[in-house]
């Protein structure tokens, strides 16, 4: 990453153990009618949550609620063609939209005892477990970047960030992590 401020002190060796970049995955934007959503659940093998801001995971596949008619389906990269074909074939009777957005965004994992503290530097949501429980997912902001924030464990968060905003989000998190290095 390029040095981003004149103030960066070379003496700091930044601990980056709080950050992980997961392997590339299949990402599908699925939108449709309630009937299509129900049908997609059985084809995808994961019940698409009907509660706002909730996710469901079965095995290596997850469905993230993004809006009342919108989901982000996440699966291993190798299953992309299979899943697209299955959904397209099985849902022909139901009004819906399926768009491959695998390359649109990157996944980031922010983890560790300081995960919440790091994210609170740019995310305006209340990340207390009582307000943002495990499995909750939502689009929100990290400073000037839209992100999807998804809590996997009390101290593990999965972020989905649009491709060209990823460097910015990592740089800002790293700026905040400098406070930990001191």
């Amino acid at each position, binding site marked *: 990453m390029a040095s981003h401020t004149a103030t960066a002190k070379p*003496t700091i060796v930044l601990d980056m153990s709080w950050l992980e970049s997961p392997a590339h995955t299949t990402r599908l934007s699925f*939108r449709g009618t309630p009937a299509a959503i129900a049908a997609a659940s059985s084809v995808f093998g994961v019940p698409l949550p009907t509660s706002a801001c909730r996710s469901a995971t079965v095995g290596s596949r997850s469905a993230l609620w993004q809006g009342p008619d919108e989901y982000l389906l996440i699966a291993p990269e190798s299953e992309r063609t299979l899943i697209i074909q299955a959904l397209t074939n099985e849902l022909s009777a139901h009004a819906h939209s399926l768009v491959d957005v695998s390359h649109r965004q990157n996944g980031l994992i922010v983890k560790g005892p300081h995960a919440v503290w790091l994210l*609170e530097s740019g995310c305006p949501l209340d990340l207390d477990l009582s307000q943002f429980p495990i499995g909750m997912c939502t689009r929100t902001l990290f400073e000037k970047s839209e992100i999807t924030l998804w809590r996997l464990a009390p101290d593990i968060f999965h972020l989905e960030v649009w491709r060209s905003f990823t460097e910015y989000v990592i740089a800002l998190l790293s700026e905040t992590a400098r406070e930990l290095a001191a």
Partner: protein
Amino acid sequence: MSALRSPKGGRIDRARPLQFTFDGKAYVGFVGDTLASALLANGVHLMGRSFKYHRPRGLLGAGSEEPNALVTVIRDTARRTPNLRATQIELYEGLVAQSQNRWPSLQFDMGAIANWLSPLLPAGFYNKTFMWPRAAWHALYEPNIRAAAGLGTAPSLPDPDHYAQRFAHCDVLVIGSGPAGLAAAKTAAASGARVILCEEQSEFGGSLLDDRNATVNGQAASAWITDTLAVLGKNPRVRLLTRTTAFGYFPHNLIGLAERVTDHLAELPDGKPRERLWQVRAREVVIAAGAIERPLVFPGNDRPGVMLASAARTYANRYGVAVGRRAVLVTGCDAAYEAALDLVAVGAHIELIVDVRPKGYTPGPAEKAARAAGLKIQEQSTVLGTEGTLRVSRIKIAAIDSNGVIGASRSHACDVVLMSGGYTPSVHLHSQSRGKLVFDDALGAFIPGKTAEHSHSTGAAHGVQGLTALLRDGATAGAGAATAAGHVATPIMHTGVALDGNMAGVPGVLPQATSLPPTKAFIDFQNDVTTRDLALAQREGFESVEHIKRYTTTGMATDQGKTSNLNALAFIAGQSNRRIPDVGVTTFRMPYTPTTFGIFAGHARGDLFDPVRKTPSHDWALARGGVFEDVGMWKRTRYFPQAGEDMRAAMDRECLAVRNQVGMFDASTLGKIEVVGKDAAEFLNRFYINNWSTLGVGRSRYGILLRDDGFVYDDGVVARLAEDRFHVTTTTGGAARVFAMMEDYLQTEWTELSVWITSTTEQWAVVAVQGPRSRDVLKSLVSDMDLSPEAMPHMSVAHGHIAGAPMMLFRVSFSGELGFEVNVPARHGTAVWEAIYHAGQAFGITPYGTEAMHVLRAEKGYIIVGQDTDGTMTPDDAAVAWAIGKAKPDYVGKRALERPAMKRLDRKQLVGLLTVDPQTILEEGAQIIASAGQTVPMTMIGHVTSSYYSASLKRSIALGVIAGGRGLVGQTIYVPMPGRDIAVIVSSPVFYDPKGERING
């Protein structure tokens, strides 16, 4: 140890001395000192010059209310912070501080001539004096007034520190940590609520730290503070913040906190921000901000050495400093007697206590204690003046008889005067939150009334007095807040024992022998406002307190009337025979104390000011010396200069390469939206002006989008990928707003349509390959597609593979040449870009940037929405009316185009512009006039929207909009520039290949 420093007591560490300098002179203080307490311990009272009159000024207070002692702290050449209150600067080893607003020195200040001229500098002086001649304002008056105004000097170098920002949420935010605040936090935390306790000073305790003798539940107050903090500190749901000012109360219980992280440290630690902004969303807020003592208003009340009694207490009890050796206390408030007792305890002599209240009041506990201690008290008296140049040396006291007649004055020698007009609850945050204020007659001050937010004012900020009552009120507020936030809370009660002097007082000016308002009796110390200024404003007809405030500047600026507000109101009330509550109050503005710009910028500076969005070719272009420009948040390559080339040379080479061989261009930033559903074509029919029903699968069309007002909003190529699936492109800058507009119509107007949209801007990397050899380049890379003109005609789209990556290939041209746009999933973008570059070498491929792209499209008369259009152009104005699907019953903007104004013949229309001198390049934005030789104001008939040098045409070209322009083709118009009118011939906007033959290769 100096004679002014007590041998023991206070909260300083006498074992750890600290060296520091003030105005170049070296001094010694201790760990725990502020700059103010350390200077006082060294006998220094003179710390600043006043804002307007350059009067010598010393400390008035001991905390954030200090209006006078504003100094500059210098760490290094870049770290130079002006206008800091000496009372809030924690001493560290090597601290360097300087006084301000003086020249050549603090002791001898030339600017003080303003003091002698002060009768000539009344309120409104500038407004009245510098009226004319008008021309002198910019040349003479304003520069000189600006040079004379202000206190410290802003730093000239970029701020080398970094500033952090955080969001935080809690059930209960407690602001202030005196007895009420601590009791509130303790009770709220015990209920299980999430609590944040913030304290402006370096340690928790508030007024308890200023009291030698107070006990809580039988414990010394300091021990109780320690125990309470230990309990709070162990609670994981409690966050404790010192050196943290709640500077602003924003709507819906958002409180801005400014935490000063490193300013108190001698060595700046790696990684730590200088300051941290906390944006706290609290369900409930407890405001325990305390109360501020008021000065008394009498002639010469601003002389160095004249200070608040409460400040003297703080210096004595917290820092072990006697503010003087021989003190006179002037008070209209019982609690101030405690200061006299405390000064005696640190070895000072109390020359006299002057009580300014009329006889007949009931003596309070502090006065009784002072009498018991044998201190000399003169009752029912007033102050007629003070003497001393850079430090008070005498004070004139006169008794008032039972008829209100002022007797002969007597002068008393002294080196410090303590004054107290009573206490004013700190209602700033309550007022910022739009809460109402009510006047408390017993206290003689405003206290918080009806709240507008979920807030609870408590303790002295709520007008409560007496230690036990403060602790009880705090606990009750803490319980109320926690309960309102959904917890079960019981107030934790404490019993406090203290002298509990009464805080009520006598606001306003002390009686004087003349009926005129006294001179040099200051009300607002920071803004140099005297009683005479307020009286003058009233004489000149300013009645509303809001008007008086603005005319005289009382209560304004960084001080926000902390010490002056009530005295000003009382004086105005007295002058106009009104009661204080009838005068009304002005609104308190945020911030409570000045806040750095850095804390609001946070990390948003330099490369992190905005996200820097990079395309797949970014690093490749960077390595080859590409020059970039910002387009929205995107970095796009403007041109790729070769050795020795300037921008023009690079552009010319790139343009000619596209016209003659082939060029490649990163078009990834274009917005892309996938429109899917059985009604997709119907939706696009209603949304864009074009007819989409007739677009076959595998074909694309140039689309124009209007708003419902009929004006061009965006454009782009739309391809039909399947019966129910379209790939829509938008302008780079329009992607988000077009997406939002589509959602708006789908969600709120045409809910019956079965269509969904998905942004795919970042899914695809796009390489435009343009030029006569473009097909040859792609043929060498693509084996699974037929790229022949028959199989892949202009405006077609097909799928295949390129360099191993899946590809969606568009036959499309924004250059007028045979051209393609290669779309691949974004993570393949860099590899595919490089593959095309390598394969293209055999055909002379040339990477080109946005500058060449602009020239190429302008040569063809292709518009850029937002450059050649400006939000007031119809499709006809922009020469794209041919795209309208005329048979459609409706589309966004159609009805508006029927309005008469949209059909006028003199609307500004897009035309081409050819300068008579082919080497003259017009300036974009230049105005157009019909005839040469006009004088200002000229009659402008249009303006230049795009202008370039065309290497292909070996001359300049331009696009512009002119009223009725299409009717002027062939005629000469003029572009006025300094010194000349440039003759220009109006032409068709298509300059190159007007028949459009080259697009077919």
